[in-house]
C-alpha cells in the first residue's frame, strides 16, 4: 500500500515538473508512457498527441474509456522589447494575481529560466489592493539583451511557472499542473489494481489534450475510440477557509459527480462500489455541463454513457495546487473496482 502510494507520488512529481501547455502535450508523452509501460498491454498515440494505454479484458466485448487531460495552463510570449524584457499573455485560465515574483521557464529553442516582474512604478507602490496589475504591464526578465534573446526565443513561445513539487503534512503535496496530471496518475493506479483483478472489458486510458482551452482533445479521442462507457478523471475545488461550498474536503476520497452530464447508473454504481470496498468518497453535485472532459465525451458520436471522478484539490490554477495522495490512490482503486464489477452485458446496466 505504501509502495503504491510512493510510486504514485513519484509519478505525479515527474509529470508535474514537466511543462506541457495546451498544444504542447507532446512534451509529456515520454513520461506518461514510462508510467504505463509495465502495466499496459499496448500504448499508442495519435496526431494530436493523445496517449492511449490499453489494458485487455478477459472478454473484450465492450470498451471502457478513461480520460484525464495532460495539458496545463500557461503563458505565451507576445513581444521582446528593446531592453530585453519579454511581454506575454495567457493560454487558458491564468489568474494574473498569481504571477508576480514567480520564477518561470520560457520554452524557446531551448528552455530559458526567467523571473516575472511588473513595470514600475506599479511594482513599487501599493494602492491597498484596489486595482490589480494587468498581465500586459508585467515582464519576464531572462537576464539577456534583446538580440541574444531573439536567437532562442520567438514570439509564441510558451512559458510555465518553475515549481518543484513540495511535500507537506499528511502526505499532502503542492505543485503546478496537478490539474490534471493527478488524473493521469489515478489512471495508472487503476491499471496497477486491474493487474490483480479479473475484468471482462477492455480499458483504454487516454491522456487527453487541449482541455484547458475548451475541452477539445476529449472529443477527438472519444470519437476515435467509440467506447461503450467512459469516465473522466479530473480535479475539483476542495474547501478552504475562504470557500466552503460545495463542501468537498481534501482526504475524504474521490468526488463522484452527479447531475445531467453524468450517467445516473454510473454515478450510483461508483458510490455503491466505494461503500462495498470501504473507500471513502464524496458526492459532487453538478447542475450543468461540467468543466471537464466528461462535458464533451457524453455527446460524442451517438452519445456515450459518461461518469466523472474528481480528485479534491485546493488553489486550482495556481502554481501551488494542493492535494492529498490518498485521494489520488483511492480514485485509481475505485476506478478499478468499478470496472471489475461491470457485467458482461452493459446494456442492462446502463438502462435507466
Amino acid at each position: 500500500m505504501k509502495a503504491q502510494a510512493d510510486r504514485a507520488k513519484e509519478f505525479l512529481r515527474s509529470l508535474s515538473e514537466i511543462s506541457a501547455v495546451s498544444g504542447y502535450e507532446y512534451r509529456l508523452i515520454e513520461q506518461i508512457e514510462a508510467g504505463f509501460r509495465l502495466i499496459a498491454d499496448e500504448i499508442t498515440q495519435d496526431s494530436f498527441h493523445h496517449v492511449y494505454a490499453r489494458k485487455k479484458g478477459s472478454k473484450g466485448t465492450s470498451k471502457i474509456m478513461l480520460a484525464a487531460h495532460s495539458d496545463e495552463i500557461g503563458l505565451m510570449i507576445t513581444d521582446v522589447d528593446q531592453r530585453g524584457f519579454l511581454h506575454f499573455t495567457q493560454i487558458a485560465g491564468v489568474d494574473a494575481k498569481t504571477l508576480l515574483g514567480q520564477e518561470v521557464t520560457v520554452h524557446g529553442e531551448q528552455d530559458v529560466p526567467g523571473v516575472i516582474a511588473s513595470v514600475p512604478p506599479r511594482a513599487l507602490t501599493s494602492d491597498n489592493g484596489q486595482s490589480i496589475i494587468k498581465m500586459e504591464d508585467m515582464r519576464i526578465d531572462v537576464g539577456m539583451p534583446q538580440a541574444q534573446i531573439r536567437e532562442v526565443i520567438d514570439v509564441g513561445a510558451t512559458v510555465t511557472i518553475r515549481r518543484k513539487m513540495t511535500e507537506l503534512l499528511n502526505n499532502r503535496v503542492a505543485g503546478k499542473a496537478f490539474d490534471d496530471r493527478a488524473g493521469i496518475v489515478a489512471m495508472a493506479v487503476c491499471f496497477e489494481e486491474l493487474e490483480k483483478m479479473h475484468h471482462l472489458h477492455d480499458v483504454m486510458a487516454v491522456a487527453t489534450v487541449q482541455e484547458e482551452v475548451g475541452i477539445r482533445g476529449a472529443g477527438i479521442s472519444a470519437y476515435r475510440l467509440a467506447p461503450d462507457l467512459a469516465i473522466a478523471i479530473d480535479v475539483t475545488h476542495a474547501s478552504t477557509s475562504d470557500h466552503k461550498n460545495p463542501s468537498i474536503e481534501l482526504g475524504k476520497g474521490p468526488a463522484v459527480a452527479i447531475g445531467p452530464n453524468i450517467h445516473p447508473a454510473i454515478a450510483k454504481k461508483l458510490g455503491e462500489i466505494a461503500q462495498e470496498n470501504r473507500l471513502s468518497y464524496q458526492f459532487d453535485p453538478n447542475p450543468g455541463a461540467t468543466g471537464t472532459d466528461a462535458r464533451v465525451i457524453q455527446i460524442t458520436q451517438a452519445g456515450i454513457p459518461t461518469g466523472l471522478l474528481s480528485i479534491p484539490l485546493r488553489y486550482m490554477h495556481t502554481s501551488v495546487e494542493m492535494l492529498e495522495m490518498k485521494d489520488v490512490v483511492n480514485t485509481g482503486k475505485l476506478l478499478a473496482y468499478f470496472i471489475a464489477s461491470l457485467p458482461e452485458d452493459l446494456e442492462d446496466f446502463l438502462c435507466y
Partner: protein
Amino acid sequence: MLLKELTELNGVAGMEKPIREALIQALEPSGCAWRIDKIGNLITSRNTLSTAPRVMLSAHMDEVGLMITEIDADGTLKFRTVGVINPRLLVSKAVRLHETLNGVIGSKAIHLQKPAERKKDFTLEQLYIDIGANSKEEAAKQVKVGDYAYFATAFEPLGTGHYKAKALDDRVGCAILAEIMKKDYGFPLYGVFTVQEEIGLRGAQVAAYQVDPAFAVVLEGTAAADLLEDEESAWSTEVGQGPACSIIDSTTLYQPELVQYVKKIAEKNDIPLQFRRGSAGGNDAGKIHLNKSGVPTITLSVPCRYIHSPVSVMAEQDYRDCIRLTEAILRELPYAVMNRT
C-alpha cells in the same frame, strides 16, 4: 561561492544567526578578529591597536520575510511581513518554516472568484500559509506563533552574466564586505554585519556607536527599476552599469565632496560607476552618519531588480566592480577626508 551560500540561508530580521555563523566561518581563516555585540551585530576588525582613525564598512545581514501571527482552527497560518513586502508578491508561493516544514501561500481559485473579486488584489489579511495540517492542534505541533517563514529560492545563474536569488538585499553587501575583510589595508578597519536594517536601521545605530568610526562605507543591494523603454529617470539604478553611489535617499544626504571623491577614484581606476537616481528608500547610512558627532559616510550599491520579493536579479560584473571600487577607495583613502573635522 559565498554569495550563493548567504542568499540560500534564512536570515529574516530577528533571526540573523545563520548568516552570522556562515560569515564567521568564511572569515576566520583569513585571521580577522570578530565579536558579536549585544543585539547580534557581527563586528569584524583589523589593526585595532593602531591609533589611526577608524574606518567602518557595513552591510546588513537581515532580509525581509514573514512571521506567523496566528494558527487558525483549520490548521492554516496567518502571518505578517517582517520588513516591507508588497502582498501582491506573496500569492501562489512556496515558503519554508524550518528545514523540514514546507508550506504554500495559495489563493482562491480564479473559477471561484466573483467578478468584483477578480479585479482586486488579495490583501495580506486574505492570505495564509497552508502546511497541510487538518486542525489547529496538528499545526501547533509543528509551528508556534512568532515563528518565521521565508522563501526557498535557489541562487542560480540567469541569462548572460546575471544571477537570480532571494535576499540579494543585502547578502550581496555581506559577500562584498567579507571579501574586503580578507585583506589588510594597514589602518584600523571594522567590517560590521548589522542586524535589523529592514525594520528601521536598528543594528547599524548600535554598531556605529561602538566602533565610533571617522569614515564609513555602507555596502548595499539597491533597487533597479530599469524595465521601461523610456522614463530612465525613474529607474533609480540600472543593472549591469556598475556599482551605484548614492547622492540622497530618505535617510541620508550624502556629502557632495565625498560623492565627487568616489567618482574620481572610479575614473582613476577605470571602474564603471553610476549614481543612484531618485531619493526614496534608506539604508544603514541613515543611522551611521548621525553617530555621535557625525560620520562622513558613503553608500555603494549593487543594483538589484525586484528586491523585497521572493526572487531578485543582479549582474555579476556589478558585484565584481563594487568589490574593486571599495578596495580602491580603501587603498586611496585620503586622511585629509577623514581628518578634516
